[in-house]
């Protein structure tokens, strides 16, 4: 099967609507198809990967820990909009430490997160074959 570049655009926070968790479900399925997968977090989507999420008081499943599994599925390109972080008073240090093991570098643990400007993200998006927006 041909390999295409798939990008999943996450634009909403974790729990206000169903889009975030159902997007993650698609990403996990997509991993089985051996495509070139990347994720982008823009607008309120940056909240999805903020460290220390706690759903005890709202009766929802805290699926944020699932993001830690992405590295094991060879999904290690997580682009985060610098502008979206700044607009919300966040920085990279507020995000979960999402990592993968680089098989081309003696399985060294590396960060999957790359904070990029919206201009850089625009260039990355224009290289994609398929953009799924959630």
């Amino acid at each position: 099967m041909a390999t295409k570049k798939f990008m999943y655009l996450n634009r909403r926070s974790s729990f206000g609507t169903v889009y975030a968790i159902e997007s993650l479900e698609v990403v996990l399925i997509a991993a089985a198809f051996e495509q070139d997968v990347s994720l982008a977090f823009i607008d309120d989507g940056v909240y999805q990967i903020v460290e220390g999420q706690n759903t005890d008081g709202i009766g929802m499943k805290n699926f944020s820990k699932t993001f830690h599994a992405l590295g094991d599925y060879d999904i290690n390109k997580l682009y985060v909009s610098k502008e979206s972080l700044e607009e919300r008073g966040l920085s990279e240090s507020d995000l979960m430490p999402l990592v993968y093991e680089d098989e081309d570098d003696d399985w060294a643990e590396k960060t999957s997160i790359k904070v990029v400007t919206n201009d850089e993200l625009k260039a990355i998006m224009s290289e994609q074959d398929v953009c799924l927006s959630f």
Partner: protein
Amino acid sequence: MKFAIQVNEGPYQHQASDTAFQFAKAAIENGHEIMRVFFYHDGVNNASSFTLPPQDDRHVVNNWASLNIKDADGEPELVVCVAAALRRGMLDESEANKNSIVGNNLHPAFRISGLGQLIEAGIQSDRLVVFGD
């Protein structure tokens, strides 16, 4: 061109399904192929055979059915995500029986399947067009 379509919003609440339908209809009329329409999130509600709009309104579900989008074997290519459907009470006969639920509401022009069908559509089509917020 070979298109795949993803519909992320339910009928009547949101225009996404109507716009996707108009797009699909126009594409077919202009000689393009719609290889699959994948219904996700609240979009699964576009497949309910229990839908009864007032007579002076459009029938979103029947509109989709009228496009007759099928594969070479005659299987529907209006595909409803199984996980999204079951959690929203959208069941075909098999899922209803499996879960001992009386009644089922999947319109026969649609079929229930997994998210892999969405990824496959992205791989096999020339363009995957997403309709939703």
